[in-house]
């Protein structure tokens, strides 16, 4: 478990150690989606890209 801080609401939340790069993890407090960036086994996160979800357009 990695403990991370939400980039929006600042709450702490945890991510499984085996989270893979690209995985979406939600802040357990506000639900903000973050994308996992794993660097040398150290998990960092970024806000999930706010690309428009085009869903079939």
């Amino acid at each position, binding site marked *: 478990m990695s403990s991370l801080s939400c980039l*929006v*609401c600042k709450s702490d939340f945890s991510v499984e150690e085996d989270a893979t790069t690209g995985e979406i993890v*939600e*802040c*357990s*407090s*506000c*639900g*903000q*989606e973050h994308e996992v960036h794993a660097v040398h086994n150290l998990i960092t996160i970024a806000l*999930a890209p*706010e*690309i*428009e*979800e*085009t*869903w*079939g*357009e």
Partner: protein
Amino acid sequence: MSTSEYGVKRVAILGGTGFTGAEIYRLLSKHPLFKVEFVSSESKAGSPVDKHFMAARHGKKSNALKFSKIADLNSNYDIIFSCLPTGVLPQFINQLSLHADYIFNVSGDYRVTDLDLLQKHYPETLKHEFVGSSYYYIPEFSEIDHQVKVVNLPGCMAVATIYTIYPLLAHDLIENRIVSDAKTGSSGGGKTTTEHHAERTNNFRAHKVHGHRHKPEIEFAFKTYFQKEIDLQFSTYSLDLPRGIMVTSYSVLKEGVSEIDVKKAFYRTYSSTPFIHYFNSNTGHNSNPMIKTVAGTNYGEVGVYIDGKNCVSIASIDNLIKGAGGQAIQAANLYMGFPEETGLQSELEGAWP
């Protein structure tokens, strides 16, 4: 999911030829733990049940199960699902209570218990005294009470409205003035609606601007079960759609409440509800709640959008499933101790466009 550890329950459906009764019959035909053994219809008593259902169109049919009149229900069942027009169940309730552990009821009869409200909105219900116990139950928010006989599911537009404002009220985030604008498809009125297709189609119109029975229900629900007095304006509109409800609730944030407080409240409320999904990103109109993606499913979609003090929360559901039949099965699953999603997951869900 292995269901072998659970015992199969015997089920009766009342009002099996109606829109909601048909949905329950259809859904239960794939449910591994509920077995339908009685289906009522006054108008089709004696006729094979499977002949009546579009749902049986691509499956195997049997003539074995025939519709029966309610008065002929005299075996015992674990569960009765009651899908009768408001005012009918009370005529049979005392007798039926003897034949079932629980009655899951989608009609309006016992949703409010205040005498004044009953007199005003449910005069038919009051005509028959019910000696048993009854309970208003929303799977996402209510506790299970195994002592009651009748488990009343919420009204379809009522519950969609409740999904929009529950997190706000539970976390005390908004002023008590709420405006809810509810739009519904045509199956909401049941199979006997007289509005002609040619009139309904290619139109959008106000249905009940004031006076809809779901308004006192919502107010009563928040007051009785959640101890919140709200000042609600509730109006309903008719869509040219076969199914689906969308409700938007407009409210004003209390001083000091931020967007992130609101998002947290919604996220927490719906993070583990298997059927209500909160969409917390707002990137393009396809990430907002809509009707097309919930129609035909037991899912609900919820979104909340803040602009300064203005709070706009939206929910969409299928009136016949999450607003009625699916909701009742979900409740029955929980009452029986079955996994909540049993028989309600869709393998082909999500067809687009």
